[in-house]
């Protein structure tokens, strides 16, 4: 299936744009057409009202992303809504705010996930969200001056960052006040169990977690700014590799490729789609292996067996990917309109090597199941800990294995098909345990499905007629999408829904490039899962979320 556009002004099978407008009634002050969805412009003090109507009466229960941006004459927040049942039904709620005093109503009371998204918008753009429970900086340090993605920001002015927030927990007594029993515990940002540079502030009541707060931004590398200063055609593609860097490079590249191809009406040849699908699934396998290895590390402290087994499998997958793309980690293999080169010659060798590995995989997985999922020690640690009920997961916008481990049947590969997925035979794995164990199990079973997909792709590629091996369509050297064309498109990354919002301004660089990171939304659920649990269960819950800080902080 090629990347066909959904018509902008109709929403298939659901309500039409006009019906939605009717539902919103006089809240709508204007209409916009985004490439992916109809946009309804509303006044900044009716955000909650509008979102509540769309959620309760039209079924838009997934606030996928909040994009904020600044125009010459106004600020704007866009709420990208979807449905968990059918993510092809989308709607955008556009909220302009005053240039002088950008104030807009918070959506947090309607969708919990808006909490962090709006904090980020405040941090980077500078929009004030009224009624937000806790509006402060999220990615940049508290003492930062100015909002870096706003128009008048001067990047060269000095900044001062204090170390106060990193108080040494041993230095003074960290009990919160004299007659309370709780204790404050700092975990991270340099800590082996935080999967990178996450800082978790935990308040303990005895051995139980009374409250946790994740403090992020220790790896905020200005990915959005980087993409906004690069050209569509070639320069942006290397950056996605570095969002979710756990070998999930091709999946991320696909997110950008899909959005940019739809924005510029580029077709992708079928043959290239098969290669993409195969590469992406190999990446997913590698990413899930590391998730498994680090989870075992968190739960067992086992740096020996399981971790090493997982790395062994990753090495094998990376070898295949290296043959295909020329790199072990940062592939930069996709191009708009296809992929950069064909399979390596001799092709038979490549097929044989990949098949060889896939043949050995069931045995390896058996081993993992013996060591991990079939192990009662691990089961005791993970079954019924870190509970995340489906409604809660939805209100936080959780996606990927985290959502599927909570019984939410949501996978963009099937529900909003792209690439070659809908021609192939595979299943979406859903488990309804809602606990750490289910999330782990979902990932392990997904590896099997990915292997199944890769196998089918190999068969197809092998039989593909030699003169039809078209790896790239004709794409102009420079791309200049029309002014004010806006798009939001998502793919199923290793961690969940990875979305890109782009606004074109008639030049060869995007005017706004926003990344919707699945880990960012998933991480928000941590307090829900760990409050009231023991400290080690909190660590297990964090491990089962499988976050990667490059993607959380971007």
């Amino acid at each position, binding site marked *: 299936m090629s990347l066909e556009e959904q018509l902008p002004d109709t929403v298939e099978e659901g309500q039409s744009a006009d019906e939605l407008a009717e539902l919103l009634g006089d809240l709508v002050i204007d209409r916009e057409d985004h490439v992916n969805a109809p946009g309804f412009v509303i006044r900044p003090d009716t955000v909650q009202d509008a979102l509540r109507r769309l959620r309760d009466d039209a079924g838009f229960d997934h606030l996928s992303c909040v994009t904020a941006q600044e125009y010459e004459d106004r600020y704007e927040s866009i709420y990208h809504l979807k449905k968990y049942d059918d993510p092809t039904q989308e709607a955008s709620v556009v909220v302009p705010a005053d240039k002088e005093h950008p104030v807009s109503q918070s959506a947090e009371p309607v969708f919990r996930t808006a909490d962090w998204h709006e904090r980020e918008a405040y941090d980077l753009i500078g929009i004030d969200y009224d009624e937000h429970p806790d509006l402060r900086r999220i990615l*940049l*340090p*508290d*003492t*930062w*001056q100015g909002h*870096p993605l706003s128009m008048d*920001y001067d*990047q*060269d*002015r*000095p*900044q*001062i*960052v*204090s*170390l*106060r927030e*990193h108080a040494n927990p041993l230095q003074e007594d960290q009990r919160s006040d004299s007659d309370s029993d709780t204790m404050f515990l700092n975990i991270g*940002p*340099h*800590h*082996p169990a935080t*999967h*990178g*540079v996450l800082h978790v502030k935990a308040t303990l009541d005895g051995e139980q977690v009374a409250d946790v707060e994740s403090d992020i*931004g*220790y*790896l*905020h*590398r*200005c*990915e959005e*700014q*980087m993409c906004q*200063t690069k050209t569509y055609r070639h320069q942006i593609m*290397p*950056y996605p*590799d*570095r969002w979710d*860097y*756990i*070998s999930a490079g091709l999946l991320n590249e696909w997110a950008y490729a899909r959005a940019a191809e739809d924005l510029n009406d580029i077709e992708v040849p079928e043959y290239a789609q098969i290669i993409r699908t195969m590469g992406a699934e190999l990446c997913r396998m590698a990413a899930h292996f*590391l998730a498994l290895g680090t989870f075992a590390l968190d739960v067992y402290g086992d740096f020996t067996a399981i*971790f*090493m087994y997982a*790395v*062994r499998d*990753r*090495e094998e997958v990376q070898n295949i990917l290296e043959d295909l793309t020329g790199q*072990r*980690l*940062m592939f930069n293999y996709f191009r708009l309109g296809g992929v950069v080169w064909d399979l390596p010659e001799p092709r038979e060798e490549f097929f044989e090597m990949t098949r060889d590995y896939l043949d050995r995989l069931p045995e390896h997985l058996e081993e993992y199941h013996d060591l991990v999922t079939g192990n009662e020690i691990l089961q005791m640690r993970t079954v019924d800990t870190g509970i995340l009920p489906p409604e809660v997961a939805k209100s936080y916008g959780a996606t990927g294995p985290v959502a599927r481990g909570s019984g939410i049947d949501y996978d963009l590969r099937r529900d909003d098909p792209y690439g070659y997925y809908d021609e192939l035979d595979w299943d979406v794995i859903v488990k309804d345990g809602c606990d750490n164990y289910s999330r782990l199990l979902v990932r392990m079973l997904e590896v099997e499905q990915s292997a199944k997909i890769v196998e089918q792709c190999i068969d197809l590629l092998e039989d593909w007629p030699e003169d039809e091996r078209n790896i790239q369509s004709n794409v102009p050297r420079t791309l200049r999408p029309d002014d004010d064309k806006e798009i939001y498109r998502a793919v199923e990354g290793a961690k969940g829904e990875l979305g890109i919002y782009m606004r074109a301004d008639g030049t060869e660089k995007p005017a706004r490039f926003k990344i919707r990171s699945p880990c960012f939304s998933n991480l928000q659920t941590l307090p829900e899962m760990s409050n009231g649990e023991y400290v080690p269960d909190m660590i297990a819950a964090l491990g089962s979320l499988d976050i990667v*800080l*490059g993607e959380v902080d971007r």
Partner: protein
Amino acid sequence: MSSQQHPFVTDDSKVLTETRDARLAGQDDRFNSRLREAFGSTPFILTKFDKFMNWVRGSSMFMLQFGIACCSIEMMHTYAVKHDLDRFAAGVPRASPRQADVIIIPGTIVSKFAPRMKRVYDQMPEPKFVIGMGSCTISGGPFQEGYNVIKGAEEVIPIDIHIPGCPPRPEALVYGVAKLQERIANGESSPVVVKPYELEQFGDLERDEIVEQLAEDIDTDDLVMRYNWGDSP
């Protein structure tokens, strides 16, 4: 392994042969380590204590388990099966900076993290060594123009070995570690570098516009790091 890494190995074939033979006489071959073969059975080694210590340091490096960004994935692969950094006497990552000799900096350093990294570095006991892994620690790498990115780890802490690449392959990291070992064993100290960004007390900063602005939020004895982005390369 190069002979430079064993600076104390003397040519014992002539001088010590007699003593050794005398001592070995009558013993069975239970004492047959290669060390004994190299040293002879004499309990004395003639070397400079400094040299000996350098050799010890180079041959037993404890790494700090320190992951930042994408490069740390390749670092983990280097520690794990296949590349197995342990073969080079440098494989056991320690979770606490107080037990580590070497810190590998695997990734992009941003404004919020730099003070923390400096703190971790300060907590390591002397002598300590730093390996900068990847372009990000050299210059900021692909993110050099970012508003929040430190243009190279050397702005914050001194670095002994730079390993270029984005990310460097595990083989490159192994090579870098081996190079560092060689340098340590040869007693070469790291060059002293200028560190533009220091942790200092807020009250000690020169008072200018930005300091005035923040005066209410920050106590004078709080530690802060001041970034003069305009002066960065």
